[in-house]
């Protein structure tokens, strides 16, 4: 205890028999305050975060110093001359220069442990790999045939519900908002926005007047389309995220614009390609300039200073 170290007179202190408690200190409170300020600062402003970080560092250091004072102040015990570890099997032999003995029991111990670890590893590692690896490899996106271009009227959003994977059934059902932007330089232009909210992935809804749902027969999987008139933007029911008609965030907690899909046109059919994430969109329709990034999960920043938190996205 700290008070023992300061006690004059220096009575012998028995360390073995008492609890090793750190002396009471106020520093953790200041440290916690600094961490709190850092967290608040991450949301509000980088200056506050920096101040919080400095406070946390300083008081964290003081706390560690206080907590380890007893250990550090304790006089370093003279390394007692340890008796040479003499094995029972080691028979003292004649001669001054005795080579270091490597007892048989130690060898057996080590080899048993080693062989055990080897067997354990051979069994465990593939199983662990099977647990983890499939979640990260072969993450392709299938192309989805959405039917003839004629189903997508110009300058109007169409809610399109489709099955993203051929072998998954209704779990793979996804929704995209598709707008035909007409021709741009003799090339058809589509705006295809994923309904997945960029906050935490709830399904956003278009703010407009939905028409009648209609089934589209495609080569493989059924597609349902619902035209929506005069879409002013998209809204999320979960936490109030709001987006404009290009998918840019206008209000609420989302961290970026709505994700989009690449598309291609095959035999007069619109075909959905790989989805990608969007920082923000300048301009509208066919003239839009899209800040595209590879697909990130909802809530992960793709641009701005916060992107340092997501340096690598599998």
């Amino acid at each position: 205890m700290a008070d023992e170290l300061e006690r004059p007179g220096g009575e012998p202190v028995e360390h073995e028999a008492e609890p090793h408690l750190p002396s009471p200190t106020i520093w953790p409170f200041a440290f916690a305050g600094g961490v709190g300020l850092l967290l608040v600062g991450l949301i509000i402003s980088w200056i506050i975060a920096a101040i919080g970080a400095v406070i946390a560092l300083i008081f964290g250091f003081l706390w560690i110093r206080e907590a380890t004072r007893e250990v550090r102040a304790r006089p370093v015990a003279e390394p007692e001359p340890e008796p040479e570890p003499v094995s029972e099997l080691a028979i003292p032999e004649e001669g001054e220069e005795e080579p270091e003995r490597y007892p048989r029991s130690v060898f057996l111990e080590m080899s048993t442990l080693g062989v055990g670890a080897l067997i354990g590893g051979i069994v465990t590692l593939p199983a662990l790999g099977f647990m983890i690896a499939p979640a990260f490899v072969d993450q392709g996106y299938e192309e989805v045939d959405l039917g003839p271009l004629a189903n997508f009227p110009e300058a109007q959003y169409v809610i399109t519900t489709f099955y993203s994977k051929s072998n998954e059934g209704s779990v793979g059902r996804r929704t995209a908002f598709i707008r035909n932007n007409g021709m741009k330089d003799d090339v058809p232009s589509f705006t295809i926005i994923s309904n997945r909210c960029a906050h935490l992935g709830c399904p956003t809804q278009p703010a407009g007047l939905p028409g009648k749902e209609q089934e589209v027969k495609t080569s493989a999987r059924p597609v349902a389309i619902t035209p929506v008139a005069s879409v002013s933007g998209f809204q999320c029911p979960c936490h109030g995220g709001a987006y404009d008609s290009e998918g840019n965030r206008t209000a609420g907690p989302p961290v970026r614009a709505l994700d989009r899909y690449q598309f291609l046109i095959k035999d007069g059919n619109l075909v959905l390609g790989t989805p990608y994430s969007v920082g923000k969109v300048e301009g509208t329709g066919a003239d839009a300039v899209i800040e595209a990034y590879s697909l990130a999960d909802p809530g992960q920043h793709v641009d701005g200073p916060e992107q340092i938190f997501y340096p690598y996205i599998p």
Partner: protein
Amino acid sequence: MALLMAPLNWLEERSGLVGAVKYFLFRKVPAETNWFHTLGSATLTAFLVQAVTGVILAMYYKPSPEEAYHSIQHITNDLTLGWLVRGMHRWGASVFIILLFLHMGRVFLFGAYKYPRELNWLIGVILLTMALGEGLTGYLLPWDETAYWATVVAININGNAPIAGPFIADFLRGGAEIGEDTLARFYSLHMLVIPGGLFALIGLHLYLVIRLGVTEPPWTRAAAGYDFDENGRPVRQGLVEPRPRGNGSLGTPARSEAEV
């Protein structure tokens, strides 16, 4: 009586289990324990209820995207007493978490996390986290809209963690998006992985409780710095005289006995 004791004696002679159980049941605890000390046992009971009802539910539940919802409906509406067992498991989950927090509050307010019981507090924190993990993974299993979207949001919250987040989210989903593997994965975590860890750590938790003994409430004489003479009568410690250290004045005679 002899007839009753014969099998117990047989067992005791070969395993020592009877003695161990006796030691557990008749070990000394501080005189001034109170009802708050039962919160830990209550939490354990709630966990055992979850384990038993969960095992029974697993006999009827089908963890595949096409069948999960219908099997839950089948359990609830068609099977005899299915509504009861599912209800016990569903509401018992909340009871378990509430009792965990009350137990944690008791330990905190009684100062029972202090030396030499810090390790047991740490194990308790891991147990709490795992119990919350049970709540998260179990919530998806009914496979209705609430379950699905709550899990989407929960996984994406995990995905927001700096650096590791995207990997955690992909691991939980079993891929880039919630798919047919996600439900089976959550089912495995919910009924095999996390419960296994819970059982192991609860065992360690209880072992440490028995080894270190029960803490007195902070208002007791022992906690207030009294010593006890050999008759167990409290002896006031002088305030001027520094308390002698390392002689078992840390607690009651009962507890220091347990520490030996």
